[in-house]
């Protein structure tokens, strides 16, 4: 295949990626967009077997098939065997960590590619190539180790709260300085040792960078690391002389940056605060311990009665609904109330759950009609006329501390103001706090009733009690 044809096909794949992002930005075309992206990736992968651009400096072309073809196909097979079942079988609740993981391995792959190309080029590398290699290694490694930490946080393999140790900010600053120093070392001295040191330091920095990030900010960080990985791919594209990689990587870098900002806005966080949390946050006293204070807890029958006499009910779903897989049961409850002439809406907080749009995905799975899903801005003004707000497995997204307690991890996040409703019902299993690890005063409010237990079990009971009325 001629160089030009090869390049043109690469460009076509790049166009597929643009169309994919375009499609993914609109609900109707999102799925098709993703498929177009997959098509582009497939084309790009297949075509590389037919022609390999000569690397960096050397201009000799070589004959097909690729060297190491068997190994390459084997490695792809291994990747497929690992990746596809993981993506197929993961539960909805665990998707965010899977995305983090996929992002991390992408960053790792980019770093490895840069390292191999660096070894391969040896002393023939131009300064520009070395600089791009350094960039790719640093950012790829940070993305890799950072994503692993976010994965562990989301999977609750470690605490979801900010990990801040005394003097931490100095350690981070020192590591960053060391990364920069060894970057200079690589550029000036060349050779394998500096590169290994650089990679190791970058991995360490990635860990230190993400550890102090509070759980609520984790998705923002995933998105940011995602954008970073995109940029490393673009940098690799420069070194490997591949227009496709430059375009694809830059696209992801740019759209990822915008997306990160949009997500931070939706969560009411400042991007700066999120990223430099380590430098601004102080070690906090643990506030996650449930206090011994009186609460009003009720039975499924009590809840059913409250609902039965309401004119308007707002259902506020949260992460617990996903954990309990209670989306079908909640729909059953809503339908039942509707059939009784009660006005029912779902109040959807943009960051309820563990990924933006989590609740939409979950409720869509149970075929809840779109028009019953009300966004935060829509539903907040209506709580004054709402008789019952029923909060199912949500906590942080209704926590008034976001408005009243400056300095708490969620301060400034817009919340669903359920406290304006005449009655608030919480369905949760215990008095434990939510993701951000902070106490929710609303649980102790006199107009709040708690129904303890797994959301699905509780809802099933409420449904039968309501039917019996």
């Amino acid at each position, binding site marked *: 295949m001629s160089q030009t044809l090869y390049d043109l096909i690469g460009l076509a794949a790049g166009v597929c990626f643009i169309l994919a992002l375009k499609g*993914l930005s609109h609900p109707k075309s999102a799925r098709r967009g993703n498929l177009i992206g997959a098509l582009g990736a497939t084309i790009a992968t297949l075509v590389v077997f037919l022609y390999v651009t000569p690397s960096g400096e050397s201009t000799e072309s070589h004959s097909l098939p690729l060297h190491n073809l068997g*190994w390459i196909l084997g490695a792809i097979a291994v990747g497929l065997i690992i990746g596809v079942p993981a993506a197929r079988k993961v539960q909805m609740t665990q998707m965010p960590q899977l995305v983090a993981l996929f992002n991390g391995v992408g960053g790792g792959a980019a770093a490895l590619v840069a390292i191999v190309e660096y*070894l391969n080029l040896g002393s023939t590398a131009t300064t*520009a190539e070395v600089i791009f290699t350094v960039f790719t290694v640093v950012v790829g490694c940070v993305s890799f180790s950072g994503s692993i930490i976010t994965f562990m946080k989301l999977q609750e393999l470690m605490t979801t709260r900010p990990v801040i140790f005394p003097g931490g900010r100095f350690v981070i600053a020192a590591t960053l300085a060391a990364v920069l120093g060894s970057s200079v070392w690589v550029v000036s001295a060349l050779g394998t040792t500096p590169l290994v040191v650089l990679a190791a330091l970058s991995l360490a920095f990635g860990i230190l960078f993400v550890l102090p990030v509070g759980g609520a900010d984790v998705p923002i960080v995933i998105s940011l690391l995602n954008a970073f990985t995109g940029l490393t*791919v673009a940098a690799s*594209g*420069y070194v490997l002389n591949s227009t496709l990689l430059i375009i694809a*990587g830059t696209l992801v870098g740019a759209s990822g940056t915008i997306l990160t900002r949009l*997500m931070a806005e939706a969560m009411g966080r400042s991007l700066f605060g999120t990223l430099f949390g380590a430098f601004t946050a102080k070690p906090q006293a643990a506030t996650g311990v449930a206090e011994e204070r009186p609460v009003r807890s009720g039975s499924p029958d009590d809840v059913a009665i409250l609902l039965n006499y309401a004119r308007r009910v707002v259902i506020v779903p949260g992460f617990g609904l996903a954990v309990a897989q209670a989306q079908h049961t909640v729909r059953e409850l809503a339908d039942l109330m509707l059939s009784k002439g009660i006005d029912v809406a779902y109040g959807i907080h943009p960051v309820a759950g563990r990924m933006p749009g989590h609740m939409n995905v979950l409720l869509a799975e149970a075929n809840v*009609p779109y028009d019953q899903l009300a966004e935060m801005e829509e539903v907040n003004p209506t709580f004054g006329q709402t008789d019952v707000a029923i909060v199912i497995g949500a906590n942080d997204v209704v926590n008034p501390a976001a408005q009243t307690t400056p300095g708490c991890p969620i301060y400034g996040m817009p919340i669903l103001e359920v406290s304006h409703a005449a009655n608030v019902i919480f369905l949760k299993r215990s008095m434990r706090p939510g993701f951000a690890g902070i106490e929710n005063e609303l649980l102790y409010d006199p107009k709040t009733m708690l129904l303890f237990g797994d959301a699905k079990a509780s809802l099933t009971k409420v449904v039968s009690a309501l039917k019996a009325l």
Partner: protein
Amino acid sequence: MDAIAVISIFVLAVFVGFEVVSKVSSTLHTPLMSGANAIHGVILVGAIIVADHSKTNLELGLSLAAIVLATINMVGGFVVTDRMLEMFKGKKGGSK
């Protein structure tokens, strides 16, 4: 490719990326992130190229590792995104 061409492509791609994504609703944040994530799995192409270039076992080993990781990123990313989006179509109603 000369520097100015690379820079121009970079700058234009930045604008395309910005523009295309700038008005997405929060509902689609996660699938979009996941889809973009899958796209950068195209580093697989780079990994295959360096595997082809590899002259030592070390290089080959590292590039095969890169291929495995990149494949996971790319294929897993598109599959998981598709699964998420499949659920969005729920609108039509009907039983699960």
